[in-house]
Structure formats: structure tokens, C-alpha cells
């Protein structure tokens, strides 16, 4: 009887484990927690190819070999074991915020012109395209921007995800035009260090191709009423669109940002799909 070739067996186990795990992710829909729906076809492709690899691998099991066991096979098993044991269900805002938070500003700062001697430092000047500077006292003037759609919602969004993106987009692309209008938006509470007591961001997670590039996207809100702001709590806010000057940790000086003066805030539930997909 030929001795079983442990290396070939290990590789078979690895391939099989991946097929099983990927298939289960596809089957129970959990795969969208990790990657953009448009990428699922690649995982299906991978499963198919792995099955083909397995079909060949079984023929090698009986081959004799004097090679040492390769520990590298175990490396392949680490992510599957980790994911199965930890069984993650939702994102952590703290971790995702590490990559960057997009809070609705008036416009992309690259086009913003500032006429104010205090504010401009040489670095910032580098980033601005010089357009017409309208000299006023020290009020930052904002260049007219064509109402370009920044966050065109893609087909992969759920209905309320699409509504969220469109709301953010309307506010972002034409803040001056819609000041004073009423709006409502639903998302989770994100609190950043340095926020005042009644400030919070209503946000969602935005994904471009996988969770590793996900960002938080949201809009600054302000509520003077009685409410306990807990991070990650899902809420629906209704209020008037306004603007404010705000300086976050990331930035060197204050910039103009959209703000919702919240009139009413309600608790709500996290939706099935955590993400919004701009593309």
C-alpha cells in the first residue's frame, strides 16, 4: 500500500475548505459584508476553478513522496479559521473611520478659494486651483461649481441606500441652493473626537470594491433636544439644511460644511445591507 502523501492531502484539504467556505458565504449572502456585490462573480469563478483543481488533486493523493510537510499549507487555513471563529457580522465604525471619513462639505476643497490672510499657508495654496478670488473681509468664498453629481448611486444599492446617497449628493453638490430646505436622512450615529456635545454625523458605510477600502460617509447634524447619542445607533433625522464652519482633526483650518439642524430624531433599525455603493 502506498503511503499517503501528506502534502498532497493538505493541499486538497485547503482547496476543499476554501470551496466550502466561499460557497457558504455566497449561499447565505454574507459575502456582501466583505466585498462589493459586483465582485461576487469572481468568487463564483474561484470556486469553479478550485473544484477543477480538486478534481486533479485527488489523483495525486497516492503518489509517494519523501518531502517534508510544508507548513505553508497551514497559512492558507488561517483566514478561514479566523473568519469562522470570529464570525463578524457588522463593521466597526472605529476601524473603518481609520481610513477616512467623508462628511458632506460644500464642495471639494480643491476648488475652494479662500481670501483671508490668516488662513492660507503655503501647503494649502498648493492644493487650490486659482479661480477668481472675490475679495471680501475674511469670509471664505466658494467658487461656483457646476452641479456635478458626486455620488451617483449605482444599481447595487438597496432602496434606502440609494435614497441616502441621493440625499447626500443633493446636499453636497448644491449647498447654497438648498439652504433652508427641509430634509430627512437615515443612518447610524458616528461621533468623532472633538465633536461638541450636540454634534453627530448621520452616516453609512460606503464601499468601492471591498471592505478594506470602505469609508464612512455622512452629514453633520446638530440637535439641541434631549437625546442620548450612542455611537453606531441607527437613527432617522428630519431637519433644516444649514451650513457651518468646522475644523476636524484631519484638517488644518475650518472649512464650510453642510449641517442639518435636526428638528426630529427617531431611533431606527440597521438595514439588511450596511453599505451604499456609489459605483
Amino acid at each position, binding site marked *: 500500500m502506498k503511503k499517503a502523501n501528506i502534502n498532497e492531502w493538505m493541499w486538497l484539504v485547503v482547496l476543499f475548505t476554501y470551496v466550502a467556505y466561499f460557497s457558504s458565504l455566497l449561499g447565505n449572502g454574507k459575502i456582501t459584508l466583505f466585498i462589493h456585490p459586483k465582485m461576487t462573480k469572481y468568487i463564483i469563478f474561484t470556486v469553479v476553478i478550485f473544484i477543477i483543481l480538486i478534481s486533479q488533486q485527488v489523483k495525486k493523493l497516492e503518489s509517494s513522496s519523501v518531502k517534508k510537510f510544508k507548513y505553508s499549507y497551514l497559512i492558507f487555513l488561517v483566514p478561514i479559521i479566523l473568519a469562522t471563529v470570529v464570525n*463578524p457580522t457588522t463593521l466597526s465604525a472605529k476601524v473603518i473611520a481609520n481610513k477616512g471619513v467623508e462628511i458632506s462639505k460644500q464642495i471639494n476643497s480643491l476648488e475652494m478659494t479662500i481670501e483671508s490672510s490668516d488662513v492660507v499657508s503655503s501647503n494649502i495654496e498648493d492644493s487650490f486651483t486659482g479661480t477668481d478670488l472675490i475679495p471680501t473681509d475674511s469670509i471664505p468664498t466658494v467658487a461656483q461649481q457646476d452641479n456635478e453629481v458626486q455620488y451617483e448611486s449605482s444599481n447595487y444599492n438597496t432602496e434606502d441606500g440609494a435614497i441616502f446617497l441621493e440625499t447626500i449628493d443633493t446636499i453636497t453638490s448644491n449647498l447654497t441652493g438648498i439652504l433652508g430646505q427641509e430634509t430627512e436622512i437615515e443612518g447610524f450615529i458616528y461621533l468623532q473626537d472633538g465633536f461638541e456635545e450636540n454634534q453627530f454625523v448621520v452616516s453609512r458605510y460606503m464601499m468601492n470594491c471591498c471592505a478594506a477600502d470602505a469609508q464612512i460617509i455622512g452629514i453633520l447634524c446638530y440637535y439641541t433636544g434631549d437625546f442620548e447619542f450612542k455611537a453606531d445607533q441607527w437613527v432617522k433625522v428630519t431637519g433644516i439644511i444649514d451650513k457651518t464652519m468646522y475644523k476636524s482633526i484631519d484638517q488644518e483650518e475650518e472649512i464650510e460644511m453642510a449641517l442639518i439642524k435636526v428638528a426630529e430624531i427617531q431611533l431606527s433599525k440597521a438595514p439588511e445591507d450596511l453599505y451604499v455603493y456609489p459605483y
Partner: protein
Amino acid sequence: MENFYEYLNGFTIIFMSIILEAIPFVLIGAIVSSLIQLFISEKTIRKLLPKSKIKALVGAALLGIIFPVCECAIVPIMRRLVKKGVPLDVAITFMLAVPIFNPIVLLSTYYAFSNQPQMVIYRGLLGVIGAITIGFIIGRFNNKDVFKKGVLAENQACCNHDHGHDHEHDHEHHRSHKKRNRFVEIIDHTSSEFFDVGRFLIIGAFLSSIMQTFVPREMILSIGRGQISSIIVLMIMAFALSLCSEADAFIARTFVGQFTQGSIIGFLIFGPMLDIKNTIMLSATFKTKFVVKLAIVISLVCFSLALLFNIFIK
């Protein structure tokens, strides 16, 4: 304690997502590599290669336009090309340029920077220039012994296994070359190539996830925003985050207005060339000494391009 679970949770999601994102492409790279192994001979490569070095480098840098490959898939393909006789410097240029200069990445850059479409041109152009420069510099070195043991083993048409899966050959294979046996060979090569590169992908993904989960962005960003410090900061970010070149433009966008444009471009060209994930994957192919040398050259060239941009264009 709750904090720990939150971090573990976040880490696992990011780790798994990088793997789910990258594995299909490493697999595709392994398949393409096997196809090259079987169907394209050294003779063909020699014929296709331009005689002049400059033409070869430029050609390699532009190939991505018709042959879009991401930075994960490119490693097994680049290895195979070198084994087939493509000179090291041309292969390096190819490996560095293709993940930047391809329609998918340029398109996603366009979406991310939709109100500054010139960023696409800057990224594409400087990516190509950078890759050619780096390849050229590498070519000047004495590259006698850069490959890991066993990577450049004999290059016969069939049943060649440089590593791992030993098995008994039925020597009838050599003589008949039936279609089915070709298929079997493709499978075998794909399997072993995928094993070889895949394990480094997992290690790289693990390390990148640690960086993403535990290193606070503010800490890195606080290093500075000046002409020079901004470039260093964003290059460190690009290295640490190890983002796919299809998605990194969207993260780069968050730096707009706070960092110099040159540093953002540095982020966009350095990231696809060198980050934790693909540095580890390079170790599947090259000896550590060479990987270090390559990393230094890539860093210096990208830094210089970003600096020149800051000085002359903005």
C-alpha cells in the same frame, strides 16, 4: 474587553475582504502564467522583444492598456515571463506599470476625481515614467542572483514542477501531448503557482489588515503636510493600507485639500507599485536582498516624481 472584540471584528472583516478580493485575481494570474508556460515559447518571446532596451521598457510599461492586470495577478505572470527569458528590467517595468496604466484603474481614478480629470493623466503618465525609470535603474545593477532558490528551475514544456508537488510521471505524456494532457498540465501549474504566490498574499493581507485596524490615521497624517513631509506621509499611508489599485483613488480623494497634490499623486503611483501586500508577494519570487533594493529604488523614484510635481506643476 468590548474594545478588543470590536477591533478583532473589524480586523477579521478587513482581512477576509482583502483575501476575497485578491484571490480570484491571483488565481487568474496563475492561470495566465500557466498558459504562457505552455503555449508561448522562449523563442516567441525573443522574437517579440524589441531590440532596443528603451523600446522594450516603454512597450512593457504600456502593455497594461490591452492587458489589464491588477497588482495581485501580475506577480505570477511576471515570474513566468522572466523564466521565459524576458530580461529582468523589462519584467519589473511591466510589473510596476500594468497595475496603474490600465483601463480599469484609470477609469476608477476618473470616477474618484471626477471634478479634476487631469488626475487621471497625471497618474497614468507619472506611473509609466516611474515604471520605466525604475526598470532602467534596476537594469544597471548586477542582477546575477536575484531569484529565490528553485524559482528559475528548468523550463521544459511539460511536467516541470519547480516546487512542491512531486508525482510520478507517466512518461507517455511526453510523447503524446494530447489535448487532455495539456489541460492537466495547465491545472497542475495553476495549482502550484497559486500555492506559491497565494501564501504570501495571505501573509501580506494579514499585515495590511493590522495596519488598517490598529494604526490610527491621525498618527500618520500628523507627520506633516509640507512640500516634502506630505509626500512622505502619503507614501507611508499607501504602503500601510495596501489598497487595490482599483479602489485606492477613492481613499486618495479623502486627502484632497489637506495634502499637496504631488503627495496625492505619489500615493497613487507608489501604492500599486509597493505596499505591504505586494512586498510580501515579491518575496515569493525574489531574494530578500533584491526585494529591499527594489523597494528602495521604487521609493526614491516615486518620491522624486511627486516632489518634482509639487515644485514645477503646482
